[in-house]
């Protein structure tokens, strides 16, 4: 695959996704929303894992913080606009990421894995048993509505009219468009970030931290910055999830959620951004779409995952790299 093909494919993919609102039944649009949210979550993890070389088993903590924060804010300020709400949730997740990152990043490898797991579970434990007035107990916070999406709705109606169809104005489709836009924005932000001097420095730290320190680079600060950015974006994903579901509970912080997003990132192929997004789609489709056909979806997911880890550790994106190496002369 030449270098020009990949962006073209991605662009085509985005367009295809954008067209979904026009022809797909509501069930699939809903799946699409959840897949996009999970893709944002997975891409944020890729910054940390693929580009930063920091495998975190507690990334769901920031997702959950964004989710619960979103519900908490909405219930106190119903009708709040999407942008201020999103900004607040990003802020909450980022603020949480600073102390957790500052402590966790002092260790590496498997210890980092375990420490992030520990912090994630601590937060889950707190959220689970927090008093009802604060975080809604085990049911969580319910009754979250959608922020006014006038801009999106107007755009959407415009598009429908352009296409010569009558607008179907179902809230779900508007929300889908919103989520798609957010996902693309996040992708672009991350793409720019990893190609920036910051991103290159981060990669250098991943490849040989000792060397970077010998160059005079304060490596801890860079890793922490990446950790916070990743956490902030995960919080954004969580906020979107709350707005879609209408509720948020402590379950989103549980370690299996961290495990699931790791699966998505690895299956998709780390260090590619697109890979984890694809992996997220795959995981979500298996989870949601299949669960309505069969109760055995965890079995399938586990089996798929095992297959990938054993035979395709580069993930789906790895396939692309593989074909590139096969066609280029050594």
């Amino acid at each position, binding site marked *: 695959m030449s270098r020009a093909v990949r962006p073209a494919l991605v662009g085509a993919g985005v367009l295809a996704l954008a067209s979904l609102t026009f022809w797909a039944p509501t069930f699939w649009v809903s799946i699409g929303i959840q897949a996009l949210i999970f893709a944002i979550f997975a891409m944020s993890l890729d910054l940390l894992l693929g580009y930063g070389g920091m495998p975190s088993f507690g990334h769901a903590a920031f997702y959950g913080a964004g989710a619960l924060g979103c519900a908490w804010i909405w219930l106190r300020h119903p009708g709040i606009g999407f942008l201020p709400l999103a900004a607040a949730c990003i802020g909450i997740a980022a603020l949480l990421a600073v102390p957790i990152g500052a402590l966790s990043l002092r260790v590496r490898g498997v210890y980092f894995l375990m420490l992030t797991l520990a912090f994630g579970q601590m937060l889950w434990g707190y959220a689970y048993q927090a008093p009802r007035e604060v975080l809604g107990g085990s049911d969580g916070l319910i009754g979250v509505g959608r922020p006014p999406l006038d801009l999106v709705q107007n755009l959407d109606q415009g598009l429908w009219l352009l296409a010569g169809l009558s607008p179907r104005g179902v809230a779900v489709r508007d929300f889908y468009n919103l989520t798609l836009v957010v996902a693309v924005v996040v992708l672009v932000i991350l793409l720019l970030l990893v190609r920036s001097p910051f991103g290159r420095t981060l990669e250098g730290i991943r490849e040989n931290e000792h060397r970077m320190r*010998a160059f005079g680079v304060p490596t801890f600060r860079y890793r922490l910055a990446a950790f916070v950015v990743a956490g902030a974006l995960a919080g954004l994903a969580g906020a979107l999830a709350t707005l879609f579901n209408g509720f948020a509970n402590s379950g989103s912080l549980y370690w299996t959620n961290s495990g699931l997003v790791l699966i998505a990132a690895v299956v998709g192929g780390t260090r590619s951004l697109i890979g984890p997004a694809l992996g997220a789609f795959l995981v979500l489709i298996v989870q949601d779409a299949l669960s309505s056909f069969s109760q055995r979806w965890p079995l399938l997911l586990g089996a798929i995952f095992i297959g990938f880890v054993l035979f395709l550790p580069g993930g789906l994106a790895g396939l692309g790299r593989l074909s590139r190496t096969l066609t280029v002369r050594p």
Partner: protein
Amino acid sequence: MQTQALTVRFGAVAALSEVSLDVAAGERRAVIGPNGAGKTTLFNAITGDLRAGSGGIRLDGHDVTRLASWRRARRGLARTFQRSTLFPELSVAENLGLAVRARLGGGWCFLPGGGGRLALEVAERLQQAGLAAQAGRPARTLGHGEQRSLEIELAMAAHPRALLLDEPMAGLSGAERRLALERLRALPRDMTLIIVEHDLDAVFAIADRITVLDHGVVIADGSPPAVRADRLVQEVYLGRPA
């Protein structure tokens, strides 16, 4: 650069014991000694990779004993490692790019771009190091001599005030050795050089002064002829009976 009574312990073993060095600006100092004498430990203590149990380190008159390794690097301390410490999967050009960028600053820029100046300097350095032909290849594909060349160039990219070279001649062929020696000789005189080496021919060719370590203790420190004639040195290092 000076160290004062530097001591480093690993458990009960004193890898360095009360090592004091005084290296003048621009001096070419060689540190020699048998294997296990503590030479690399000395380097690690100076750069901050190892915490000294006691003693002090001064750079340009400033006390850097408490500073983190990256801060000392910022103050103009650079080093090469005994085993080439490169970025194996990145291209040679990218390796140098990281070094140059670290010096130029700007690592906190979140948007891509502004690489023109960087690219120019990287191209220059590639030429200097004789690696222009390998610019796009992953560093791990380089031959040993080329890797050592890159290693030195990475350290040089920081425009250091003091450069610590850990066995720069190790593993080099005869021709490569001559080239390396020339390069070392050509280094600017305002840069202080401290070299750990086993290749005594190179040492005696370059060094202004030689410090001899054995079992973590300085046993000789002086001009090359003086050290060569020192009987303790001969006994310990060169194996001649007293």
